[in-house]
């Protein structure tokens, strides 16, 4: 399966419901199985740069096939093979938490990025959005 615009919109809608329940405003971005943006939306009160940050997180989570918060360990100078050239990867690489890969079994079919709350809140919104794939939202 892959992420269609309809799926992405359902995911964003569900994620924003969770964000509202947590009492914060955020942006949510969804990328497809090749890392390309399918849809991104910003809630009324969310700050303008959150949309781009959410997009970066979604891409990072997709590209590394792991939560964006875990990318930081590659940049730890005390670890082996450390070091990032952050100017690469379309300038989209970010180590901020709040991006999750969308997995079906072992294959990554996309990524979701959320920006606007604390890292914990953003991850919770990501998880709600991913759950919405299985349960289509009423329009």
């Amino acid at each position, binding site marked *: 399966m892959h992420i*269609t*615009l309809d799926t*992405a*919109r359902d995911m964003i*809608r569900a994620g*924003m*419901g969770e*964000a*509202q329940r947590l009492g914060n*405003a955020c942006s949510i971005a969804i990328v497809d199985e*090749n890392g*390309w*943006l*399918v*849809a*991104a*939306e*910003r*809630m*009324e*009160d969310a700050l*303008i*740069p959150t*949309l*781009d940050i959410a997009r970066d997180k979604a891409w990072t989570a997709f590209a590394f096939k792991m939560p964006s918060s875990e990318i930081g360990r590659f940049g730890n100078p005390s670890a082996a093979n450390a070091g990032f050239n952050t100017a690469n990867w379309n300038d989209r690489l970010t180590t901020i938490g709040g991006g999750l890969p969308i997995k079906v079994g072992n294959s990554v079919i996309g990524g979701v990025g959320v920006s606007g709350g604390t890292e914990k809140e953003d991850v919770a919104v990501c998880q709600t959005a991913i759950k919405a794939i299985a349960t289509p*939202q*009423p329009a």
Partner: protein
Amino acid sequence: MEEVTGLATERETAFDQEGHVKRITLGMARKMLEAAVRYSVEIVGFPCSIAVVDAAGGVIAVHRADGAPPGTVDIAIEKAWSAVVMGMPTLMLGRFIDPRVATTVPLGTHAIGIANRHRGRLCAIHGGIPIREVGTSLGLDVIGGIGTSGCPSADDDNTVSQAGFSALYD
């Protein structure tokens, strides 16, 4: 389920007393994008990316129709942004920088220099249109913009944006 777009108090400030749109909300942006995506796929026949930005040029929402090339997303954003910052449709900007027609518009060849301004972000391809407050006519009253990319013909990009714009007052 009630559509979630933001906090209720914010939504009330989107209209003035006469019911005119003062500010583009996420709900309005979704409505415009839904109409424009459907128009591009079902009527024009080319899936497009469409972006809606606010008066600050910040993206409110961007959707890429299934099958639209990935690179169209950023061009759609650039077109909407350009329409807002210059307060005119991007097809106008295209006229300005075209040496063949520049001599026939009031600004003359003077405006050719706007090509690739703003670090290359200023986009002079047809398809971006500004959204204005109703009842005013100068460039100071732009409340947002919509941009489309993905059609092989520039006129079609513009038509898709107009379809989305029409949905705002639907």
